[in-house]
């Protein structure tokens, strides 16, 4: 029982992070058909925001609020400067975002210097959950992630803006024909995805190593999440992150972690063969 409970919480931590990072990817991938290789850098920008605020004497929580704004600003600028010119050239966009990713990494290194940056967690210690004890900060992380994802889900399902976005994802030409400003929808949605990635970066900063290159580690896994789950849908995103995150956490405890990682990736490849459009394809009832 104890093992199961800890494994579940470990899995939820990982799933939370993957889902938050994957959200922006699923938006750019599903909505704009853009493979954004600079997405990992939004995570790094979020983490560096917390480091910077803390180094000025601010609290972690202030950093956590600044991080999504920094992410959104970076996303907005990237979309406006580069991406909007490349919507008709997906391959060009891959190359451009990869270049941007390198530029952002090097810029962070130039501004903040080499090496990892220390971030102090807002709370120390563990919480007693009755059956097991678990680090308090991880419980906070899981709750913030769950709240954010729920808010995003409501935004997409219950607001006019969400309706626009879903329309554009399902059929861009038709959306334009009925008068939706797709360019504006793209810009806002992209900045929004970057903001959530920034939030993810801020949330992992007390747990992970804060480095300009840190985003790369999240990018690959998040792409798997999006492809396995089905690009462009929130339920697909949740399904994909639960698959990758849950599987990794369970296997890591049972077998060698290096082997576990290889097995998860193999399983993902097999799944993509069996369900090329992911668990929850766009346009299905649940997307």
């Amino acid at each position, binding site marked *: 029982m104890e093992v199961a409970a800890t494994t579940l919480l470990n899995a939820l931590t990982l799933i939370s992070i993957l889902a938050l990072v994957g959200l922006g990817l699923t938006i750019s991938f599903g909505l704009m058909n853009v493979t954004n290789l600079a997405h990992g850098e939004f995570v790094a920008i979020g983490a560096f925001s917390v480091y910077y605020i803390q180094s000025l004497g601010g609290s972690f929580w202030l950093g956590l609020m600044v991080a999504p704004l920094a992410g959104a600003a970076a996303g907005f600028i990237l979309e406006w400067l580069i991406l909007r010119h490349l919507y008709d050239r997906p391959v060009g966009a891959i190359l451009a975002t990869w270049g941007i990713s390198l530029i952002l990494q090097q810029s962070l290194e130039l501004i903040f210097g080499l090496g990892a940056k*220390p971030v102090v967690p807002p709370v120390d210690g563990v919480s007693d959950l009755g059956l097991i004890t678990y680090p308090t900060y991880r419980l906070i992380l899981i709750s913030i992630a769950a709240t954010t994802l729920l808010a995003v889900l409501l935004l997409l399902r219950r607001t006019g803006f969400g309706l626009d976005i879903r329309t554009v994802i399902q059929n861009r030409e038709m959306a334009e024909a009925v008068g939706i400003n797709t360019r504006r929808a793209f810009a806002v949605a992209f900045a929004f995805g970057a903001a959530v990635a920034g939030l993810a970066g801020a949330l992992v900063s007390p747990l992970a190593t804060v480095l300009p*290159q840190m985003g790369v580690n999240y990018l690959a896994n998040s792409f798997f999440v999006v492809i396995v789950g089905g690009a462009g849908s929130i339920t697909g995103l949740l399904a994909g992150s639960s698959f990758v995150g849950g599987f990794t956490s369970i296997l890591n405890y049972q077998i060698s*972690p*290096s082997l576990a990682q290889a097995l998860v990736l193999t399983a993902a490849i097999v799944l993509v063969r069996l369900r090329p459009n992911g668990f929850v394809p766009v346009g299905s009832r649940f997307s």
Partner: protein
Amino acid sequence: MKKEITRRNVLKSAGALATMAGAGIGMPGILRAADTMKIGLSIPITGLQAILGETLLNCYRLAADELNAKNGIAGRQIELVVEDNQTTTKGAIDKARKLIGQDKVDVVMGTIISLERSATLSVTSRAKKLFFYPTNFEGGECSPYFVATGPIPMQQVDPMAPWITETLGKTVYIMGSDYAWPRKMTEAISASLEKNGGKVVGADFYPFGTQDFGPAFQRINGEKPDVVWSMVVGNDAVTQMKQYRSFEIQQPLIAPLDEVFNKDALPPGVAAGTYAPQPYWMSIDNPANKAFISGFRERFGQDKMVNGIGEGGYNGLHLYALAAEKAGSFEDDAVLAALPSVEFDAPQGLVRIEASNNHCVVNSFVGQAAQDGIGYDVAKAFGTIKPVTEYCKL
């Protein structure tokens, strides 16, 4: 060249600028190529080991400056050719080829983790070029042109195992990064603990870039070992240490940390109380160490820390200088022949190279991190340990 240094002249050419600036601050004129010797440095300035790379580079700079301020090496000024190997195999191979083929360096030094070293060695041993490796070395590689100034597992683990079973406990759980050094160390630890009535109850190796060590801590809570020995290195060690603390694990922790890492990469206090085996600590009390630390801080900043890897590099350069001086030559074979006969009064104590395997006779200490989580107190000193290698008989 009696012109004054004016903006116009400065803009004329960079070459002229160098000449005049050199003469201006009283340097001994321009050195002809034959008046310098070149040391090629392959340093992980970026990538996984970026945290430690900068300190290692600065330790080489310090040693070169010290020698250049006197008489260089045998009258030749040292020119350091610095390359960033990016902590990658490809980077290390490319940079070793460049240093040897293009820069024609007299000796190659540097690299931190195994993959950088193996890659560099694959180039240097074929080129019959001397290569000095400063870092804790898992052993297993042997070449007449390869000199290791860091400790091998038997120099750290063999003296430490009885100390662990007596003071910390009998059962040990190991978690490491998934590469050669932690795996070889684990073999050595298992063998050594068993001889002393202890036991390794589990060992897990995590790929580089692991974001979540939760499952390992879950294992620790399940296995309930007396001691946890971590060999998760580089940037991943930051992740691992932060998460270790958040899980509030009570067992004593042995971790491959040092003063530089604790200060620059870890949040304050995270390393407090952890143990580490090292050949060098900043707290070692002797004149050579005091001079080393003050020289380093004068040059690179009063708040800077040094560590065992940096000291290994510093010692390597000085040992090379002594040997080349004695040989009266920079030929690889001549320096090698003289190398075992020189001794260097290093910050850790007297060190020398063992002729039978080109490994270093080093000191062995267990340090315990102080409450600030940065510096270490020497918890136990084992003295100097001779490297004994089954795999290497030169």
